[in-house]
């Protein structure tokens, strides 16, 4: 008997681990994210405060254009330096230039990847005391036009040292430079992982901005003049369209920018914390249900001896709170450790974070504990209520009575909720706007998940029976037992599978969504782009090829037509828009934007083009006139000259080069598309273009298929991260299955002992339990796949109507998910199986 008790204890301890694991992970990610965010914020706040300490006022253009990915601020004239310097109370004023520049390393490869990682900047080396955030650690300041000072990180990454000659890619094209100095940014090798090439002011103006122009003017106050005082004095002297802010305000802006740069990371981690906690909720619900079922007699005895319902309820809830609290505390500790790991991870991605102690705010502790305990409490509420409803008579019954027949009420409610959910999701297909569609689909998704949980026990019996049929066929009598066991307690089977179902739903949704994005992008590229080759600068909006490059390409005898695409932002109809710049002369010969009305050739100096989606939404027609402001602040009226369909390629707005070039801040080509002359093979043409591109580091020459593939490549990277997170979620789910099986084995002790006594080998017994686990896991996975695919279909067809042309099922991936779920189920059953196999037969048959 002592043996049995000991086993019970140890099995309870393991079960507890399974229960708390989900909460621990969820809370760990939540608190880890908060700690990391707080730590980064504080260190960067300190850093920027130090760096901008010498700047008392910052004078710049007040014209900005903001769109999805970029903020463009117009430049100011360099005469502004004199204006500011002339203000009473200004001790010194200096022009500031900052823009795109990418340093080429010793190996000839550009350092950093501004599209994926930290930005690459170029600017002027400040000569005014207190205005320069950098300090030289080697070499000297730039004096000649070719001189450049690099941040230490860039110099190290590119293996460049003082005296080396290299190339810097700028909007003015690649330029030859001499490294004269290496500098640190405060204590850091680089500001947040960004690279920085510093020139003399005239050189910076020529390469980074434009001659005679500045991005801003920084000013230092005379002693005794406060920042706000200085700013108000300067403001009085400023022409219209120029603004002044204090150094403190500048610091605040810089800090906010950093926060924003990190937001992707924190949103991502928070999302994962959410999924982990959601899966954990189901896991806990299931475990508590099992624990209650196990203790039915004990509870009934308590009730028979006079315990009130509320006492039983409270005792279960108290246990939940204790479990939740324990898990949350562990999660918090793990989270603090996790923050350190994540910090390292960010550094590895090139996001350099200043050294500094970990910041643990009371907010983090309170949130983590509260969330952990609340989730556990909510998850255990239903089992607790059920426990309080156990009748005292149950104490007298021989064994727990298994409820095999799902109630009619459950079926009716389940079907109604399913219909409501499916109806909402389907209605999203005909919603007017993407937001409406997303809302309807989202509500429908929640209802469907609830419906799945309600109907789970109803479905578990027939589906588990069906799934186990092949096992029964293949394994004869043992298979028969597997099937009966999987079917015998449908409520438990579906409870065990619920957590996995949620996890797999998200995986399936993501996979289908991603695969449809990829298929749609490839489809769009193939339809819109009739050219043979693409030369990609690897930059989007900022940087790119100097226009001399396309002239060189056009001059090649192998090339028939070459055209370019540029990306920028401008204000149209009082709203900042991302816009694609096309060449009306050469564009139509190379790409097809599915023009529906008007023509690309009509994109002259005062014309603009719009996608059919926007045109329909806003009621724009050919000839509609809209107010517009260019990046340089020039305001005019533009007339719609074309309406096109290929918004996946060109975005919602296009403009012709004749209109753009005169008023753009940057005039570089992001992508060059070209057709080869008849008779020139793709191979020869590519080789010829590659020869020209050799002078432009970073240029990537690709044929159309490779380009289409890469255009959708970002999806893969995102997907890889999503898969890593969901693997963890599925892991949590598997602990739930393992728990369920351990309990099943425990409950069937006598039965299993009998089977052993009459001749079942250990191997046969192990295999029965393992296969049962597989049936449960596959049941959950199939439900998840079905739900996920349906939701993805609705999203692609409804909310994503504008963005998707193709709904594609990644059959291979989905099958792999199913197989992995099955294998994972097998693993989840290992412990229970070996416990079953080790059962002492005499204890089991209850003869002692």
């Amino acid at each position: 008997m002592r043996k049995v008790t000991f086993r019970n204890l140890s099995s309870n301890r393991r079960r507890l681990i399974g229960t708390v694991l989900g909460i621990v992970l969820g809370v760990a990610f939540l608190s880890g994210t908060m700690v990391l965010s707080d730590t980064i914020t504080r260190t960067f706040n300190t850093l920027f405060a130090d760096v901008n300490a010498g700047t008392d006022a910052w004078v710049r253009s007040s014209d900005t254009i903001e769109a999805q990915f970029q903020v463009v601020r117009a430049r100011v004239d360099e005469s502004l330096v004199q204006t500011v310097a002339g203000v009473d109370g200004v001790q010194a004023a200096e022009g500031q230039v900052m823009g795109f520049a990418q340093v080429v390393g010793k190996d000839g490869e550009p350092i950093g990847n501004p599209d994926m990682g930290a930005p690459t900047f170029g600017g002027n080396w400040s000569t005014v005391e207190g205005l320069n955030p950098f300090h030289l650690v080697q070499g000297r300041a730039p004096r000649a036009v070719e001189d450049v000072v690099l941040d230490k990180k860039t110099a190290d990454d590119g293996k460049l040292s003082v005296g080396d000659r290299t190339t810097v890619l700028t909007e003015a094209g690649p330029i030859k430079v001499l490294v004269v100095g290496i500098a640190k940014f405060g204590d850091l090798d680089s500001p947040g992982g960004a690279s920085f090439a510093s020139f003399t002011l005239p050189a910076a103006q020529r390469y980074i901005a434009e001659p005679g122009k500045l991005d801003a003017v920084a000013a230092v106050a005379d002693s005794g003049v406060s920042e706000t005082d200085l700013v108000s004095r300067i403001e009085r002297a400023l022409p219209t369209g120029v603004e002044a802010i204090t150094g403190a305000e500048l610091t605040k802006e810089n800090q906010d920018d950093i926060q924003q740069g990190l937001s992707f990371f924190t949103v991502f981690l928070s999302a994962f914390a959410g999924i982990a906690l959601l899966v954990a909720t189901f896991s806990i619900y299931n475990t508590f249900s099992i624990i209650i079922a196990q203790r039915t007699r004990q509870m009934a005895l308590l009730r028979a001896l006079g315990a009130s319902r509320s006492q039983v309820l409270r005792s279960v809830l108290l246990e939940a709170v204790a479990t939740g609290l324990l898990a949350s505390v562990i999660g918090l500790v793990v989270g603090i450790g996790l923050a350190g790991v994540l910090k390292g991870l960010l550094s590895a991605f090139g996001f350099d974070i200043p050294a500094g102690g970990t910041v643990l705010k009371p907010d983090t502790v309170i949130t983590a504990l509260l969330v952990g305990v609340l989730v556990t409490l909510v998850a255990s509420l239903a089992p607790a209520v059920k426990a309080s409803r156990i009748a005292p008579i149950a104490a007298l019954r021989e064994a727990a009575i298994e409820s095999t027949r799902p109630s009619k009420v459950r079926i009716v409610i389940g079907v109604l909720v399913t219909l409501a959910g499916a109806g909402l999701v389907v209605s999203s297909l005909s919603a007017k706007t993407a937001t409406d569609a997303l809302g309807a689909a989202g509500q429908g998704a929640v209802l469907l998940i609830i419906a799945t949980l309600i109907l789970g026990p109803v479905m578990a019996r027939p589906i588990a029976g069906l799934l186990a049929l092949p096992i029964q066929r293949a394994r004869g009598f043992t298979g028969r037992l597997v099937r009966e066991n999987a079917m015998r307690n449908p409520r438990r089977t579906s409870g065990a599978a619920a957590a996995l179902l949620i996890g797999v739903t998200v995986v399936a949704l993501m996979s289908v969504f991603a695969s449809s994005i990829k298929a749609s992008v490839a489809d769009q590229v193939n339809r819109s782009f009739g050219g043979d080759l693409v030369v990609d600068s690897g930059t989007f909006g900022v940087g790119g090829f100097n226009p001399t490059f396309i002239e060189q390409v056009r001059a090649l005898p192998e090339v028939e037509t070459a055209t370019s695409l540029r990306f920028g932002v401008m204000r149209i109809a009082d709203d900042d828009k991302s816009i694609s710049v096309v060449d009306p002369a050469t564009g139509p010969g190379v790409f097809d934007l599915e023009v529906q009305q008007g023509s690309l050739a009509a994109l002259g100096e005062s014309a603009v083009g719009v996608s059919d989606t926007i045109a329909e939404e806003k009621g724009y027609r050919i000839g509609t006139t809209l107010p517009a402001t260019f990046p340089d602040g020039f305001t005019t009226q533009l007339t719609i000259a074309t309406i096109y369909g290929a918004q996946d390629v060109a975005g919602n707005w296009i403009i012709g080069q004749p209109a753009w070039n005169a008023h753009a801040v940057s005039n570089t080509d992001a992508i060059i598309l070209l057709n080869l002359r008849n008779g020139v093979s793709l191979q020869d043409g590519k080789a010829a273009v590659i020869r020209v591109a050799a002078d432009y580091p970073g240029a990537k020459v690709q044929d159309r298929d490779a380009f289409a593939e890469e255009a959708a490549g970002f999806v893969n990277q995102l997907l890889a991260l999503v898969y890593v997170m969901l693997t963890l979620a599925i892991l949590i789910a598997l602990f739930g299955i393992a728990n369920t099986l351990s309990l099943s084995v425990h409950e069937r002790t006598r039965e299993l002992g009998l089977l052993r006594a009459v001749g079942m080998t250990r191997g046969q017994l192990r295999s029965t339990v393992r296969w049962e686990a597989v049936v449960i896991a596959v049941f959950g996975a199939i439900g998840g796949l079905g739900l996920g695919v349906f939701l993805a279909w609705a999203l692609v067809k409804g909310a994503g109507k504008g963005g998707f042309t193709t709904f594609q099922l990644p059959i291979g991936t989905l099958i792999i998910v199913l197989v992995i779920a099955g294998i994972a189920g097998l693993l989840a059953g290992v412990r229970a199986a070996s416990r079953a196999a080790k059962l002492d037969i005499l204890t089991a048959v209850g003869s002692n």
Partner: protein
Amino acid sequence: MTARSLTRVTASAPASTAVAIARHAVKIYGTGDTAVRALDDVSVEFPAGRYSAIMGPSGSGKSTLMHCLAGLDSLTSGEVLIDGVELGTLKDKDLTILRRERIGFVFQAYNLVPTLTAEENIVLPLGLAGEKADQAWVDEVVKTVHLGDRLTHRPSELSGGQQQRVAVARALVSKPAIIFADEPTGNLDSRASEEILEFLQRAVRDLGQTIVMVTHEPVAAGYADHVLFLADGKIVDEMPQPTAAKVLDRMKSLEA
């Protein structure tokens, strides 16, 4: 495959007329001061075709003796042979197969698999061995225990007496060399008990089955051909051709 390995084991074992033999069987539970000698040098043989009963007061070691004879528990020293095979030398898997093919069990608590029908429970040992049931034999066994109309029922739909009849049929169906019955009537009323005991008796007389039954009920022992009395882990007496009254008298003197 499994059957072959067993044949090998059997072939190498010495021949004997007794189906189950215990020689100098000693079983000690615990160690040191708390050690309990459950079996204290027991030597006994159970010849083929005999219905033997083992009796004794609580703690006399009767159940331990049966468990060790049936390969459910192992001896501290001494040996047990079933059908000529020394159990102590067998690995778990071979022991399992030996149980499956040579030994039948009837337990006090019926111990049927709740998810299987009566018929499936009956053919369970054959199913586990992956063998096809000999339908004529199954029919005969079913007829013997009067279960014809209950075959498709699950255990929860059967009375205690019916469940125990299924258990008896299950023990008979693999034609084992010996059946061990552990208090088979302990959970039944007198009418159902009588039925079960008659079935067991008929299995011995009509089918030539060998049965060893542990019981503490003199009435049950009265059905046996031969009774063995245990006390304090030793065999203290035996009684051929027992009757319930004679057994009751003997038990009173043992417990006194």
